[in-house]
């Protein structure tokens, strides 16, 4: 656990505090984003945790120990530090870059080699890159090498400064997804700085929003911040479309599904039409046992005796419990039935979601 206790930083000669009286707690295994406008002291805060910048006052504890009272060089070797791709040593090969901290700690060669291989695989980097120099890699590859280097000695704590900043949006989204997946298994305590609120919402367990002069405006989960910004500054900072952004954070599994109009393929048409009328619907999902086969309109059934005589129309999109409400809404607005149909991974019908239901969930 990392605790910042009334930490302030006033740079010599500056008229304003860069960070003022900042208290923050980061739990073990938690990923926290520091966000805010430029000049809010987010990078200063991050650098105070590995003492690249010394606080003017206050204390910082890591696992109960005051880090300001220990050797900063030793402290830094125990913290993974990721900065934009420029942070790789340009005159060292990728192998040497990743091996930097293990070598400082005096690991033997075979242990270093094994760890480097492991990290390359973990970050899906081609082993061929090991003998190259950073300038010979793409931006996305360099970024991943930066993460691999920070993970080299498996530190429990990682500090990341705009870790996905220097790449184009497509690569960034892919790196973010890959990193989230990695974090699922690694469970590191991570503090990262970003100017991109959407990145913070997507990546973090909690967001710390700082205002100019390093004043903490809000520290909560992305969902809570979006639901209730609490102040005009935070509302402005998280930006437009708060509702839509929240949809991306809530999973379909988190809300109660509606039963939806359902018929069985073994039903007689009369029976099926009665079910639709009862549900006040002119269409219904067609199930074979519990598997979703598609949907039929009531008008298509007329003239037949069994539902199975009519080929069901496949749904254009299905969502699963792990999908976000945003994906569900997308499915609703693009589907002719105006609902999102929810199935399990193996195609078992679970229910439906309507725009009204989602709206009720968001509005509270």
């Amino acid at each position, binding site marked *: 656990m990392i605790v910042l206790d009334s930490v302030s930083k006033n740079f010599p000669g500056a008229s304003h505090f860069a960070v003022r009286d900042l208290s923050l707690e980061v739990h073990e295994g938690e990923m926290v984003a520091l966000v805010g406008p430029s000049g809010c002291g987010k990078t200063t805060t991050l650098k105070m945790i*590995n003492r*690249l910048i010394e606080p003017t006052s206050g204390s910082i504890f890591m696992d109960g120990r005051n880090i300001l009272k220990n050797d900063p*060089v*030793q*402290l*830094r*070797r*125990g913290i993974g*530090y990721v*900065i*934009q791709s*420029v*942070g*790789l*040593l*340009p*005159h*060292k090969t990728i192998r040497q870059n990743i091996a*930097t*901290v293990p070598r*400082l700690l005096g690991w033997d060669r075979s242990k270093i080699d094994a760890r480097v291989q492991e990290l390359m695989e973990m970050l899906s980097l081609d082993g061929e890159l090991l003998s*190259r*120099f*950073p*300038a*010979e*890699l*793409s931006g996305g590859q360099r970024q991943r090498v930066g993460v691999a*280097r920070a993970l080299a000695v498996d530190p429990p704590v990682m*500090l990341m400064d705009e870790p996905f900043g220097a790449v184009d949006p497509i690569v960034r989204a892919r790196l973010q997804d890959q990193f989230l997946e990695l974090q699922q298994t690694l469970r590191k305590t991570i503090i990262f700085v970003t100017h991109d609120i959407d990145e913070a919402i997507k990546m973090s367990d909690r967001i710390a929003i700082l205002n100019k002069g390093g004043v903490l405006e809000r520290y909560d989960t992305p969902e809570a911040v979006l639901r209730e910004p609490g102040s005009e500054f935070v509302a402005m900072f998280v930006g437009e479309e708060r509702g839509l952004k929240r949809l991306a954070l809530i999973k379909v599994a988190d809300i109660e599904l509606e039963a939806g109009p359902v018929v069985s393929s073994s039903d007689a048409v009369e029976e099926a039409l009665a079910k639709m009328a009862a549900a006040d619907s002119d269409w219904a999902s067609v199930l074979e046992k519990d598997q979703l086969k598609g949907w039929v309109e009531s008008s298509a059934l007329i003239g037949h005796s069994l539902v199975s005589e009519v080929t069901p129309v496949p749904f254009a999109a299905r969502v699963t419990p792990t999908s976000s409400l945003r994906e569900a809404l997308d499915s609703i607005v693009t589907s002719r039935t105006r609902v999102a149909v929810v199935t399990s991974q193996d195609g078992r019908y679970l229910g439906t979601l309507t725009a009204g239901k989602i709206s009720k969930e968001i509005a509270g």
Partner: protein
Amino acid sequence: MTLAAEPLIEWEWVVSHQGEILMRLGEHLTLTAIAVGIGLLVSLPLGVACFRVKKLYPPVTWVTGLLYTVPSLALFAFLVPYTGLTTLTAEIGLVSYTLLILIRNIVEGLGSVPAETKEAARGMGLSRRQILWKVELPLALPVILAGIRIATVTTIGLVTVTALIGKGGLGYFILQGLRRFFSTSIFVGALLSVAVAMGADGLLLLVQRFFTPWSRRRMTG
């Protein structure tokens, strides 16, 4: 005496004197190597100190600049009463001419290392000394080696002047030729001196490439 009929280079002379020519060539190279070597030993700590303590740089530049502008002849004339017609006298002069170039390139080289790279190294837990030896100096190497090349080529030219105090390597032949109106000797001294300078420049360029592979391999496409 029919001067005009004499050929510019008498090859028989060259052949009969090849032993002496090789000896003077060796002397020339030794004088140069010692001068640049000592120059580097003096410049490295001074350059690093000037880079870290910015206040030191202007006075150091002033002194080495002054040394650089003193005519070499005058410098030797000034030193001889104290140190005599010795290698020491020659080297004091030669070394002092390398300092300005070497120190300036060391300071500029260190200054060209990106701040982000140094901070990343610090953030990973490298000590100040490790950052100097493992990050700053290696990254400054192309600029420092460029300085060494200029200093070497300059020194090779200057060594010929030390012939006046009885040293001089290939300069000995130039001086001898001037005294005797013997063009072969002048040409041998001058041409070999130029050849040595070009050879040394080329060799150092190869050394630079060898030690800084990262600076020429770039991503293509």
